[in-house]
């Protein structure tokens, strides 16, 4: 079980999700639990709740999980995936209001130092345009 907050990347595009995860792995390293999902089961663009739930499982940490999303449906489906989590996980998963690539790298950098879920979220959101 990781002592660091996990990161989940949810994009409409498998390529964007995978590429974002690649950047996190290469720039930050492997000490942060990381999972990504994107695209619909038919190979097109989209997001779906089941895939997001699997990604949350894959990146699960007792310290919590921060989700980075791209557009509309990625956020609403992520929120639905959070609602469907068991009670013991409620309050330990957040969606960050941040650009997906930059936010994921910033969040993972913060998480790698053992920061709390709220600190990780704050760091990702610090980036938002001013």
């Amino acid at each position, binding site marked *: 079980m990781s002592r660091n907050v996990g990161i989940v990347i949810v994009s409409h595009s498998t390529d964007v999700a995978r590429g974002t995860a690649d950047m996190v792995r*290469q720039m930050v390293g492997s000490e942060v639990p990381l999972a990504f999902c994107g695209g619909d089961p038919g190979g097109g663009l989209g997001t779906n709740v089941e895939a997001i739930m699997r990604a949350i499982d894959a990146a699960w940490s007792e310290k919590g999980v921060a989700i980075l999303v791209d557009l509309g449906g990625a956020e609403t489906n992520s929120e639905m995936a959070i609602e469907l989590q068991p009670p013991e996980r409620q309050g330990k998963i957040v969606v960050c209001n941040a650009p997906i690539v930059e936010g994921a790298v910033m969040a993972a950098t913060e998480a790698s*130092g053992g920061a709390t879920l709220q600190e990780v979220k704050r760091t990702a959101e610090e980036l938002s345009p001013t």
Partner: protein
Amino acid sequence: MTAQASGSILLTHAIGLHARPSVKLTKLAKSFASAIRLGTGPDGPWIDAKSIVKVMAAKVPQGAKLHFEAEGSDASAAVAALVGLVERDFDGAEADAASG
């Protein structure tokens, strides 16, 4: 025990303190208990060396002198480690410079 330490080092990295060096510097800073600040001049302005957003936003260019000040139980070790990282050109982060 609280100690203070400071040090400075010339930033020689090809395109300055861009994304990957910033991540490395911040991660290293976070591994120390001391408060650490990074200045782009001897009198500042100062930023929290543990804040990835602030370090990256500083966009420190090549040729700038980085100043570190640390305060805490491991202040000397922290400054030595950070100066060392910059001196070693971020341990191979230059591979990233070509592609940005």
